[in-house]
């Protein structure tokens, strides 16, 4: 049993995975979505951003299985003749990128602050925790709106990467707090354990103790939180884009697509909104379910 | 008639690779008013035995075989409700950590009165009187005032006294005490042991005292059962088991305990460790570590055999066969 994948599958966590149909299904869906998003260029039949391939005459076609649809546009087209399927695939990619990067940023900042607060204690701990309290008293969407607004004011004609940067920063600003708190709690526990004291007796520097001894032991809950938070981040981004303050209109995410389709919902062209919405739900749901399973699987008491 | 009879008790933990037997064919009796000690090292199964008797086995652990009889009635197969009535009225429990044994949100008076009235048909005032008298019997000074206090207002030793009072509140016939003094300071240990012994004798309650401390057993118990790897290795009167142990494990254990009254260069050590539940050796579970093991030990598992004053699960004491050793 030397293959690491085979070994993992045989471990307690792997076994829990194999015996949970929900987890396996969620993983399959999440994997499929990620695959589509990464290989968007190959998966999608058209390039929705290439203006030259758009034909206005094909605008607002219903999906392929209804009377006026065509197999060229499997899920129909939007008001500019863009293929919905392709738009959804590319949109998913944008949503996933924004979601994942902002979570990574949150984790980095949150874990760092949590480690510092837990390890040093004293005024640094008090200060950081007050900062957390203040951050938590603001509704996340409002904070993100505020940041996005400030960003637009500061960089009015920002190039796309800057706009993305501001968006990612806005989302991660609201997410880091829970990591900081969790890691601080775990750090406080680990700090008083004898293996840390043994390292101190040996003369290891506090930095090395923090990074090499304590950090590996506090990452468990962080992993679970991060998985669940990817779903939240994606939805936050979708909300912001829906409200018009998210991604720039040139690279629409699922939220923007939903917003675009919203205007046509009541005139009967439901597919422009529903398909992006379904994709969003699928991604968020599968990621959340995976996170739930992971939390139960890693909980030693339930094993 | 015995108060408690445990017959061939088997406790299993289902695991994805098959069930693990944590208790394998455990049998012993407790007479009314007797103090039986159950001693063993960690993993031997002594706490599990207590939990099985009280009916508090944590799932997925379950009783997979054997019987537990209290006053002649089977209690191992009772439902939740029926077991709840037994617990408290017939069997009282004392656990190791006094901090978590008491509900921190209620005064001890309320907890005592509630316990008494749940099991005995007594009015509020009478129950309160009894509670105060119980607290006085367990040596809590100023019981009439302290009955209104919360658990956190008591020190560790005092809390354990309250726990003992609570266990005795409904006048049970059997008390199961799982490491009642391990978390206490040495000087308090002595007080609590003395209290437990006296108060149970006074009320005619039998005690099943589970502990790893042979000294406590020696001073408190009438009989003792030595457990190893989920089985009973030896059972008999305390004096005999300690001074003339029949089972090599008991003998090894006694010799490994440092003695405060004399100097020794080396402590006798038993090499190796207690086998894990999924790797119990064939035959006698102790045979790989036993200095006196012979062929039969690795093949056939011994039942409890009479060996003078004690009973022991060891082939050394079987009727001589072709390969018997003295």
């Amino acid at each position: 049993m030397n293959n690491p994948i085979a070994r993992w599958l045989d471990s307690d966590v792997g076994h829990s995975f194999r015996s949970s149909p929900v987890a396996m299904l969620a993983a399959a869906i999440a994997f499929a979505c990620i695959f589509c998003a990464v290989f968007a260029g190959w998966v999608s039949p058209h390039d929705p951003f290439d203006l030259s391939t758009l034909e206005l005459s094909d605008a607002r076609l219903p999906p392929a299985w209804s009377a006026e649809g065509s197999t060229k546009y499997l899920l129909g087209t939007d008001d500019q003749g863009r293929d919905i399927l392709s738009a959804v695939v590319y949109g998913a990619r944008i949503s996933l990128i924004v979601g994942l990067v902002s979570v990574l940023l949150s984790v980095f900042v949150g874990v760092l602050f949590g480690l510092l607060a837990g390890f040093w204690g004293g005024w640094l701990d008090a200060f950081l925790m007050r900062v957390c309290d203040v951050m938590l008293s603001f509704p996340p969407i409002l904070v993100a709106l505020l940041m996005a607004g400030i960003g637009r004011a500061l960089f009015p004609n920002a190039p796309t990467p800057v706009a993305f940067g501001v968006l990612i920063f806005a989302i991660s600003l609201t997410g880091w707090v829970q990591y900081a708190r969790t890691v601080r709690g775990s750090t406080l526990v680990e700090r008083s354990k004898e293996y840390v004291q043994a390292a101190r007796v040996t003369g290891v520097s506090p930095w090395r103790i923090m990074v090499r001894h304590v950090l590996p032991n506090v990452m468990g809950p962080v992993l679970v939180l991060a998985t669940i938070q990817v779903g939240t981040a994606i939805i936050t981004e979708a909300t912001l884009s829906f409200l018009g303050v998210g991604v720039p209109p040139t690279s629409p995410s699922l939220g923007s697509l939903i917003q675009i389709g919203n205007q046509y919902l009541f005139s009967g062209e439901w597919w422009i909104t529903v398909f992006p919405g379904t994709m969003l739900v699928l991604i968020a749901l599968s990621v959340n379910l995976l996170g739930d399973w992971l939390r139960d699987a890693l909980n030693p008491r339930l094993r | 008639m015995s108060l408690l009879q445990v017959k061939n008790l088997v406790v299993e933990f289902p695991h994805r690779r098959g069930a693990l037997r944590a208790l394998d064919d455990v049998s012993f009796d407790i007479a009314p008013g007797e103090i039986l000690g159950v001693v063993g090292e960690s993993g031997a199964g002594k706490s599990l035995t207590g939990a099985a008797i009280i009916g508090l086995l944590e799932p997925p652990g379950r009783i997979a075989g054997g019987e537990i009889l209290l006053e002649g009635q089977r209690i191992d197969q009772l439902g939740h409700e029926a077991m709840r009535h037994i617990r408290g009225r017939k069997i009282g429990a004392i656990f190791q950590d006094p901090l978590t044994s008491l509900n921190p949100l209620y005064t001890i008076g309320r907890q005592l009165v509630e316990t008494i009235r749940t099991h005995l048909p007594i009015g509020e005032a009478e129950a309160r009187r009894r509670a105060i008298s119980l607290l006085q019997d367990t040596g809590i000074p100023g019981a009439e005032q302290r009955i209104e206090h919360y658990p956190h207002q008591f020190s560790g030793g005092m809390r354990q006294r309250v726990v003992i009072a609570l266990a005795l509140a409904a006048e049970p016939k059997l008390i199961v005490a799982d490491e009642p003094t391990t978390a206490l300071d040495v000087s308090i240990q002595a007080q609590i042991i003395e209290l437990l012994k006296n108060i149970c004798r006074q009320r005619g309650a039998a005690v099943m005292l589970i502990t790893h401390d042979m000294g406590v057993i020696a001073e408190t118990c009438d009989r003792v059962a030595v457990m190893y790897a989920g089985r009973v290795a030896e059972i008999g009167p305390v004096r005999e088991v300690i001074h003339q142990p029949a089972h090599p494990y008991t003998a090894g254990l006694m010799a490994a305990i440092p003695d405060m009254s004399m100097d020794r260069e080396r402590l006798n050590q038993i090499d190796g460790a207690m086998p894990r539940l999924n790797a119990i050796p064939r035959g006698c579970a102790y045979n790989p570590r036993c200095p006196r093991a012979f062929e039969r030990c690795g093949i056939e598992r011994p039942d409890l055999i009479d060996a003078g004053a004690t009973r022991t699960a060891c082939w050394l004491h079987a009727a001589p066969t072709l390969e018997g050793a003295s």
Partner: protein
Amino acid sequence: MNELVQAHDLAKSFDVSPPWLNRVLERRPRLLLRAVDGVSFSIERGSTLALVGESGCGKSTVARLLVGLYTPTRGGMRFDGQDAHAAFKTAEGRQLRRRIQMIFQDPYASLNPRWIVEDIIGEPLREHGILKQGSELEQRVGELLKSVGLNPLDMAKYPHQFSGGQRQRISIARALATQPEFLVCDEPTSALDVSVQAQVLNIMKDLQREQGLTYLFISHNLAVVRHVADQVGVMYLGRLVELADKKALFEDPRHPYTRMLIDAIPQMKHVGRRRTPVQGEVPNPIDPPSGCTFHPRCPLANARCKAERPALLSLRGVQVACHAVEEGRD
């Protein structure tokens, strides 16, 4: 000079006051916990001093003071002639840390669960630059594992794959990596089963003989102390009440607390012993009794005991802090 370790009037207080806001709003005073309140002793090279006492007596704090995990509020310690705590603060302190090591009580918390045994034992070697990662380090770790009775192949495993007794042996191997002269052992066998305890104690005694180690052995178990110690110090609420040779202490204990402690231990020899244990419990260390802190529980207490703290005096080869003993009332 044959004394490797000398502690002089060692004291450590902890500030356990309520938070500043609570103090201001509720007018609560500052609270000082005197964990160790003036402890002096010396340990000869190659011998073992055991410190015994119940909870709150400060023995664990003394252990941590001696290895530099805490700095003393008062007093100090000399190691091989030099002031240890001054040295700990300097770069020289690193050299000192090679010579003093510690073994902890909890075998489950004293090894990092995410590190393999090789890294755990090798850390002191790498930290002090004695050996770098590689085959030499591996070899040395293997030797250390053998010296505590474990298989060198075990170095690739994780701590959770070992039993409590084996983990404690790994801790001992780690402590011995830098070839220290002085080992502070904080209740090293309290969490172990009796038969495993015997194995670990035997190993510790063997290693002491082979390598000429000096031990400070902390324990609450007098029987274990009898087995390992040369000298025994009894502590109560942060103070030393008696300090004597092992034989003298066990055969003729002088201080009332020592006598009470020895009497309170349940012994296997005394089947069915009846005795009247001393009443009372260890008081709260934050608010200790005045004068001699043992006076509320002491059968020999008088007015002087309530008012005046007894000093540790040498009486007939034994050091005792008790007015009654000094006055010949015992």
